[in-house]
């Protein structure tokens, strides 16, 4: 597969604006408090979901190995998946780019003369900006996941991959509903809010021509599409309309049905601390003769969108182990501060920093891998043990590599390279690998410490500048040894 990264992606522009987005959102007190509160809650829930460290560790290791095995056989498993799905009556479509995916879906809808779509939660459809694409073609799309419905009403994008509207508090949601839902009885009680939102959605399910959903696991050996959800909207989308279209990334394929239970158990517990989600759907075929419900047609769109670029490199391939639980963002001190929208990408947080460069190219995303202290909180909780900090380091390397250096592993290689910075590191290396140069530079730093500026860019906007010592540790130890030697000699002389 070729790597085509589309110029037209609206996310490329918003990812490029990362720094401005960060400034905007760091200054929003309400947003900051919404994220802090929600992330604290989610971290606590996850902590309570595992009976022991050992159990968690065994499960993480098992799931890592499952995903690595499946990725090692990815091309074969995709073919097997296609064969078994087709055997079950589910039609498979391949999309290399987001535009191809959108075109396929629009055509399927047009063939059925569909006018309205009800959508279950699908981050991959966010990736393709499917709603915008269909609405431009006069197809109405309604998000049926409560969080997705909220962001759709607010004309926003999800700020979290599991909880799309986590950036809003209940007062904000109440106001949004009051402004948008006819006959809404104002309340800030969460249950009342959800009840009223659901009534709107319930009516739409019955009228929609098409249901669109995501996929959490696509099982190759049985041709089964698995969908994890809590609201029942996923089941409604995939059973009521006559046409069901599922869309997912190529990395979601797993080999065996037996791989599902450990992955599912770890997914829900890592995401929301639930032992299991309220609903778990396993879709094997369209409605069979004699069955009373289910769609007449089921289609699966498998999207690449840069994933095969990650797949081609052994280290970066680990990015594709991700099962989209969101634990990395829940535990990320950067995500907690800036929130999900600041990233400007579909996938925010640590997973977004890893996967977005493959989707949008390093030109648009060069600020993302550096926006991490490499604290390791994400890697520590990742259910499939992706070494996230190490992958971010690797992306930094690709970003500052000279543009011409071969082999080109990533689109946009060298986008973060700055010749002045590159020269500084070259000089830095020369100084630090030579004891003589190093001693000289430290001598200069300590002797001329009175020249140390009081202002050091962003550092001193909230901190005072550090002061070099009067003498280095090297010198102090030398002096100490000299003194000890002299004392020894004078003792010797006296003796």
């Amino acid at each position: 597969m070729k790597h085509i990264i589309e110029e037209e992606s609206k996310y490329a522009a918003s990812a490029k604006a990362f720094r401005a987005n960060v400034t905007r959102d760091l200054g929003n007190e309400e947003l900051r408090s919404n994220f802090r509160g929600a992330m604290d809650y989610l971290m606590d829930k996850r902590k309570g979901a595992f009976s022991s460290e050992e159990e968690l560790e065994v499960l993480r290791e098992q799931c890592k190995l499952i995903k690595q095995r499946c990725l090692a056989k990815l091309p074969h498993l995709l073919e097997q998946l296609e064969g078994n799905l087709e055997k079950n009556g589910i039609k498979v479509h391949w999309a290399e780019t987001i535009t191809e995916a959108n075109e396929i879906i629009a055509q399927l809808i047009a063939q059925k003369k569909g006018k309205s779509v009800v959508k279950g939660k699908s981050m991959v459809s966010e990736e393709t900006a499917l709603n915008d694409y269909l609405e431009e073609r006069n197809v109405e799309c309604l998000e049926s996941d409560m969080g997705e419905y909220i962001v759709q009403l607010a004309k926003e994008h999800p700020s979290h991959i599991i909880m799309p509207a986590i950036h809003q508090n209940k007062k904000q949601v109440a106001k949004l509903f009051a402004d948008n839902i006819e006959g809404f009885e104002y309340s800030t009680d969460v249950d009342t809010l959800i009840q009223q939102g659901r009534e709107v959605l319930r009516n739409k399910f019955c009228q929609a021509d098409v249901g669109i959903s995501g996929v959490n696991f696509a099982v190759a050996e049985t041709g089964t599409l698995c969908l994890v959800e809590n609201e029942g909207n996923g089941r409604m989308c995939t059973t009521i309309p006559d046409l069901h279209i599922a869309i997912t990334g190529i990395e979601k394929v797993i080999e065996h049905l037996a791989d599902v239970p450990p992955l599912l158990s770890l997914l829900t517990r890592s995401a929301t601390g639930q032992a299991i989600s309220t609903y778990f759907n396993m879709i094997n075929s369209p409605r069979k003769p004699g069955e009373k419900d289910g769609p007449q047609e089921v289609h699966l769109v498998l999207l690449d969108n840069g994933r095969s670029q990650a797949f081609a490199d052994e280290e970066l391939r680990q990015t594709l182990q991700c099962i989209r639980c969101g634990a990395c963002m829940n535990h990320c001190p950067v995500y907690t501060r800036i929130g999900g929208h600041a990233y400007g990408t579909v996938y925010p947080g640590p997973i977004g920093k890893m996967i977005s460069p493959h989707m949008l190219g390093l030109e648009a995303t060069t600020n993302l891998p550096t926006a991490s202290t490499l604290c390791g909180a994400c890697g520590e909780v990742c259910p499939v043990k992706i070494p996230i900090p190490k992958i971010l380091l690797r992306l930094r390397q690709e970003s500052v590599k000279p543009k011409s250096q071969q082999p080109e592993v990533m689109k946009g290689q060298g986008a973060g390279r700055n010749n002045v910075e590159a020269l500084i590191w070259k000089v830095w290396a020369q100084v630090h690998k030579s004891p003589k140069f190093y001693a000289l530079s430290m001598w200069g730093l300590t002797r001329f410490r009175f020249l140390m500026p009081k202002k050091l860019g962003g550092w001193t906007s909230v901190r005072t500048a550090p002061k070099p010592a009067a003498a280095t540790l090297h010198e102090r130890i030398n002096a100490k040894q000299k003194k000890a030697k002299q004392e020894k000699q004078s003792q010797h002389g006296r003796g």
Partner: protein
Amino acid sequence: MQQLNTQHLRDYPKKPKQVYLFGTCIVDSFFPDTGMDAIELLEREGIEVIYPQGQSCCGQPAYNSGYKDEAKAVAMSQVKQFPLDIPVVVVSGSCGGMMRHHYLDLLGDDPEINNFCQRVFEFTEFLVHVLRLKPIDQGPKERVALHTSCAARREMGVHITGNKLISQLANVELVIHDYESECCGFGGTFAVKHADISAAMVADKSKHLVATDVVRYVSADHGCMMNINGALDYQKQSLRGEHIASYLLNRIKGNSSKGSL
């Protein structure tokens, strides 16, 4: 529930006669007292400390910035400075993690590199697991907080060894601050490249430390302390952090600690 982290679990050697000290570039140029105190503490335990004058920096700044070749050149030059088969004690969890874990990736898994990495110990790790130090506390009664750097915590297990050392001090009460395991926002060049995010993080860290009402917090990393102490100083707070080497030495000698900036 504590996250199980197996990366720092290892077999420890018997108490050696000699060790190397890796001082780190930050200690060398900004906080040499820490290096001197670490040496004094080790010497009090009957260990000869060798400080190779050719040492400079572990290479982490370049490594974390994506300049792998530059990091590699410096890392290789450091390995050559520590040829004897004795422990290399590092007074920073972050630099220790770099030398113990990342050198293998950076320099390749050859026998010389592997032998070097196996000999690297973070300072508190060395005191607890190799020296089995039981510090006799002669200082006044006080409360203290502990901030472990993220690399120290996740790569070197300092939240266990630092905690153990302080818990053994008879007159010291260890106070756990809110969001204790959360990053202070330093992250090397991150603090410069993404200064506003870093500022938000250090504002929270300093707030949580100040809220404990301790007069002193302790850490095994001067990188974090340069960040947190700099913020505390800017905010005109009296709270300061002190390196655990100096803190322990002062407690053992009965001196009152002073904190470093």
